[in-house]
């Protein structure tokens, strides 16, 4: 046990503190397994020396083939922050184009660290309100009918820091980095549920992860039988450990937390279990002294990713480009404003526009050197229009939590320097 004053609240918790705390309750094995914690606020990749470039690359033979490709030394996208056991890391949208998030830059959010799981020993147990309680190995699961589909994942806490404290130096990574977009491969969950034979009274399903908090969420059976997947691959290769290797639940369009990673158990039942993650967390305070629960759908949202902080722009033509997405189907329209919302222009939606996936949009802009406020506004196939900050706080209250999807953008000053604008 550390002395009582070992962790004054005005000081960041260090790994040494945690180890000291661990020593009282756990053995050496638990201590050895703890990842570093103290590096949370540090940059994830140290500055590299500038690459040595030949004066004329056409006159020097290049490097040979390699077992695994690496990025150009001129390109160094990184997730931040890093080092937290119960933390998150953010996708650097300002460094990316297109729609697919490279697997090593997919955002992370986990509640008890990333477990190391042997796929040869991993199993999925399905039980409860079923005719045939069963255990499936990874090999079993891969023999079911497979599908490959592109869906976004977004943590419903995405944008909280930017909503509460819209600092001018926020980047797209800091504003909306808890969003990523991936081509997933797996088995439709309904195929598995048909194999075990749900009983007629099964209405809810508990999904449990195999991490150190055994994260659990209650999922309506209607979603499980609709478009839910059990996935083992992202962008053509097995899931990354931080994305649930070897198996995760994928609930298209639903808040990230419900897409349980390291999936090891599904229990069918007749009512939600009211787990910690669907009561004390991931519920949304509302005016009227209530809180919204099981708020799974991610509302339509968009963000301009180019230009963005920390860039400065020059006069002339350039695309205003960004990402739009909705958990309720397809994006049908994205509008761009350069005058803070007084007038709007329809942006081009880059094909293919996929349901519950990120859509890239762009609109060509001629900047003439005056102050400008760049905003984007998405509309989805239900007719839902991305709200202003005022509309959102009017509907939910200033203390609203989770599901921050208000219109945001970038202020451009006459020098061309950009700063974040948290919307009106």
């Amino acid at each position, binding site marked *: 046990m550390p002395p009582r004053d070992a*962790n004054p*609240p005005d000081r960041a*918790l260090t790994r040494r*503190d945690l180890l000291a*705390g661990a020593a*009282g*309750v*756990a053995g050496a094995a*638990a201590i050895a397994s703890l990842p570093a914690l103290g590096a949370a606020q540090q940059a994830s990749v140290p500055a590299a020396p500038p690459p040595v470039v030949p004066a004329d690359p056409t006159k020097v033979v290049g490097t040979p083939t390699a077992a695994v490709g690496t990025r150009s030394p001129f390109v160094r996208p990184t997730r931040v922050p890093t080092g*937290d*056991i*119960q*933390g998150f890391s953010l996708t650097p949208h300002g460094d990316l184009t297109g729609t697919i998030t490279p697997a090593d830059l997919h955002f992370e959010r986990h*509640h*008890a660290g990333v477990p190391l799981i042997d796929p040869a020993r991993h199993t999925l147990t399905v*039980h409860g309100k079923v005719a*045939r*309680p*069963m*255990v*499936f190995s990874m090999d*079993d699961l891969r*023999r*079911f*009918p497979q599908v490959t589909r592109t869906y976004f994942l977004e943590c419903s806490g995405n944008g909280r820091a930017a909503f*509460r404290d819209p600092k001018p130096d926020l980047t797209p990574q800091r504003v909306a980095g808890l969003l990523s977009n991936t081509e997933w491969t797996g088995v439709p969950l309904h195929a598995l549920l*048909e*194999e075990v034979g749900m009983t007629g009274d099964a209405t809810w399903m*508990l999904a449990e992860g195999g991490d150190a*908090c*055994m994260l*659990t969420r209650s999922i309506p059976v209607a979603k499980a039988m609709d478009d839910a997947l059990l996935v083992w691959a992202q962008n053509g290769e097995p899931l990354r450990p931080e994305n649930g290797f070897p198996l995760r639940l994928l609930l298209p369009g639903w808040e990230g937390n419900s897409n349980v990673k390291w999936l090891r*158990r599904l229990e069918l039942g007749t*009512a*939600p279990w*009211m*787990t910690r993650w669907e009561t*004390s967390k991931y519920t949304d*305070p*509302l*005016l009227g*002294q*209530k*809180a*919204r*629960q099981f*708020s*799974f759908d991610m*509302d339509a949202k968009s963000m301009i990713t180019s230009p963005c902080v920390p860039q400065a722009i020059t006069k002339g033509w350039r695309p205003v480009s960004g990402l739009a997405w909705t958990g*309720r189907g397809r994006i049908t329209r994205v509008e761009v404003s350069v005058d803070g919302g007084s007038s709007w222009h329809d942006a081009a939606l880059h094909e293919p526009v996929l349901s519950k996936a990120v859509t890239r949009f762009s609109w060509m802009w001629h900047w003439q050197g005056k102050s400008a406020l760049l905003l984007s506004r998405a509309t989805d196939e*239900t*007719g*839902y*229009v991305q709200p202003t900050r005022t*509309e959102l706080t009017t*509907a*939910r209250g*200033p*203390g609203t*939590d989770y599901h921050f999807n208000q219109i945001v953008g970038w202020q451009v000053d006459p020098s061309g320097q950009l700063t974040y604008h948290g919307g009106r």
Partner: protein
Amino acid sequence: MRRIVMAMSAWLAACSGTGDGAATTHVSRTNGGPPPGQHFELGRAATPAEVAALDLDVNPAGAGLPAGRGSASDGAKVYARACASCHGPNGEGIAPLYPQLVGRDPAGETFDFAKDPRIARTIGNYWPYATTVFDYIRRAMPQTAPGSLSADDTYAVTAYLLAANKVIGAEAVLDSAALVNVKMPARDRFVRDDRRGGHEVR
């Protein structure tokens, strides 16, 4: 609609006489597969013992609660030993990683959290079910040694946290029946999602 497609495709597969993908009509839903009423026969039966070993969850009706009991006073000792190094000696938490567990901010008593994000949400003013406290501690705490507390210790530390939040008395003892009967202050504050897309912002 999908069920009709499923039934049709299964029927077509059966008519092909093989069910091994030789059906000439391609239906992407089944992509071949077994005839109606049959399964892929993948996986194996789960034994009751292995399900019981995994099935640790507790629901608000108390299903899944183990035998055992613990007092708030015993729980204070468990808390000091297993919890205080992260959550603080009195459950005050260490932001941002280790949440505040104890506290009944007067501004939270009316559940006006939507008016001010600074009102701390704690077990006492926000958690709707006492069973959730037990379930979460049992599956995830303490973080450095999850699963290391006995059933009695888990009941005790749950009792301690509920008592420190003034939900139950300081002399209270919890077992499965008593835990299920604890009515949390925020029990009736939660409503189901009424967002449906369309023109209205909710």
